[in-house]
């Protein structure tokens, strides 16, 4: 085997997080094609780690890696790359992954493809799929200079669950100290939103509602349903229309209600990542090309300022038994 794939584990205080097994599934897919060796790298400060199935594990230990810094992770990745000489490096597209992955690619003078959602094998070659243009288009990338660093969208690959024998565990003690980064600390803010987390029906507002006043329409529509809650896209929260604890998406909440109604939401992959497991999706948007329609069961090409009042009237008619 002279083709080598290196994945970098997503971890929290030395504990390997589940998304790592999605990276492993992606690596297994690519590795099956190139017949690659697969090594998982765990940066941290953990003296003792269990082996994982499907890959060898290289633990890079240093007191300076006790918590995440782009600088520390970059140094750990470069150290591991020097050791493993990977052709491909796979990193999770999370708030840590996208913070340092492009730096690693630049420092190794390799190529980089971020937020990969799929791998396509055809004509004896591999293509990497990712979404762009507000989710309207998908792009197929061909690798260039090696190593190729990819970040993989959480949820894009089902977690690796093959009953492979545990791989070997190797420890490397390093002296990695961030020199440009200091005073790192974290806040675990209370972002709970019980109503939204337990709602069976979610009515979500996007940029297309245009102004804060139109949130009243969203609330009135939500009132047509039992166990409903309102939510918003990133833009709706950035504009101050809704609190961030109501944001659905990659960096916000992941919801999976019986019914999700997207009002004036364009449907970028960042938003879709937060609601794609909803049972039924209805979208209201005046742009017939909006990407959200590709992810909807029922599509309504309408101005929501006109459509929502019409829907509320319809619901009232039924409630009052006028139909």
């Amino acid at each position, binding site marked *: 085997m002279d083709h080598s794939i290196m994945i970098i584990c997503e971890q929290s205080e030395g504990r390997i997080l589940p998304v790592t097994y999605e990276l492993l599934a992606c690596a297994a897919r690519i590795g099956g094609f190139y017949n690659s060796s697969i090594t998982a790298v765990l940066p941290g400060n953990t003296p003792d780690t269990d082996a994982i199935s499907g890959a060898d594990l290289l633990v890079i230990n240093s007191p300076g890696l006790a918590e995440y810094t782009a600088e520390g992770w970059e140094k750990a990745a470069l150290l591991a790359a020097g050791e493993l000489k990977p052709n491909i490096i796979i990193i999770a597209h999370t708030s840590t992954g996208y913070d340092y992955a*492009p730096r690693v690619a630049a420092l190794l003078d390799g190529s980089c493809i*971020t937020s990969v959602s799929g791998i396509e094998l055809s004509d004896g070659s591999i293509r990497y799929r990712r979404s762009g243009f507000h989710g309207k288009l998908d792009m197929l990338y*061909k690798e260039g200079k090696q190593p190729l660093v990819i970040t993989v969208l959480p949820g894009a690959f089902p977690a690796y669950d093959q009953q492979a024998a545990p791989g070997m565990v190797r420890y490397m003690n390093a002296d990695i100290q961030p020199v*440009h980064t200091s005073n790192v600390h974290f*806040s675990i803010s209370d972002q709970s939103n019980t109503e939204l987390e337990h709602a069976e029906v979610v009515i979500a507002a996007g940029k297309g509602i245009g102004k804060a006043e139109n949130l009243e329409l969203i609330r009135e529509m939500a009132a047509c349903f039992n166990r409903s809650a309102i939510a918003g896209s990133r833009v709706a929260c*950035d504009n101050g229309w809704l609190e961030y604890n109501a944001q659905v998406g990659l960096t916000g909440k992941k919801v999976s209600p*019986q019914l999700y109604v997207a009002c004036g939401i364009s449907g970028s992959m960042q938003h879709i990542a937060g609601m794609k497991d909803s049972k039924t999706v209805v979208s209201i948007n005046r742009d017939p090309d909006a990407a959200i329609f590709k992810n909807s069961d029922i*599509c309504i090409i309408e101005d929501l300022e006109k459509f929502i009042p019409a829907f509320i009237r319809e619901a009232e008619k039924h409630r009052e038994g006028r139909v």
Partner: protein
Amino acid sequence: MRILVCIKQVPDQESRITVDPEKAWAGYAENASYWINRYDEHAVEAALQIREKLPGTMIDIVSIGPARVKAAIRRCMEMGADQGFHLRYEHEDYLSPSIKSRLIAEFCRDRDYDLILTGVMSEDMMSGQTGLMTAARLGIPSAASVMKLEVDLEKQCLYVERELDAGHRCFMELKLPALAAVQSGINRPRYPSLSNVMRAKSTEIAEISCDDSLLDAKYETVEKVLEAGSDRAGLTLQGSTAEKAAALWQLLHERSLI
């Protein structure tokens, strides 16, 4: 203090996109309107707010692209930036962030910027790479998805708050010079003032041609652009607004959702 803001010009989100299978690239309708990438506009605003606190700060703007890009640079100067630099790249095709970051890093050498700001990603490619790669090539620290930043000149550091998953935050100090890729929630970009619009009119935007040897590097390429796949069997409702409203109620009722 010297600040550089890296911006990109992108087509308006609602412009129609056409896929040209010959060119393996997405084209925009001829009447497409172009705008500053929304995230980069927040980066410009962040720079202006720093200058308000630290008078004497100089703000430069740089952007890569064909002639149309000048309008976006001009707009930043109307918002209040001091100088604009246009790195001419004539083609409307995929240009790898690896190459862009090499061009910008090359541009930065000998210009001694204390701080480089950019948006967390572009609205069209959404890669989020160019800024961070530029920082890596310059050997300076960076932070992505920044929701708050403050400069401490005495300590020569940049205090940043990064957005993490599920609403959590990370706080840290980066030694200057540093790069921050800002998230859209960081501020509200201002509208140009009349005096700045007048001043921007008479300010020259410097043109710089790109180093051809950098453009030839063989990084990843986009081979094909296609319509996003459909994950659900989308049923588009037809008729008048009232008819669609009635049809939606009926469909939801059949599924016991209302």
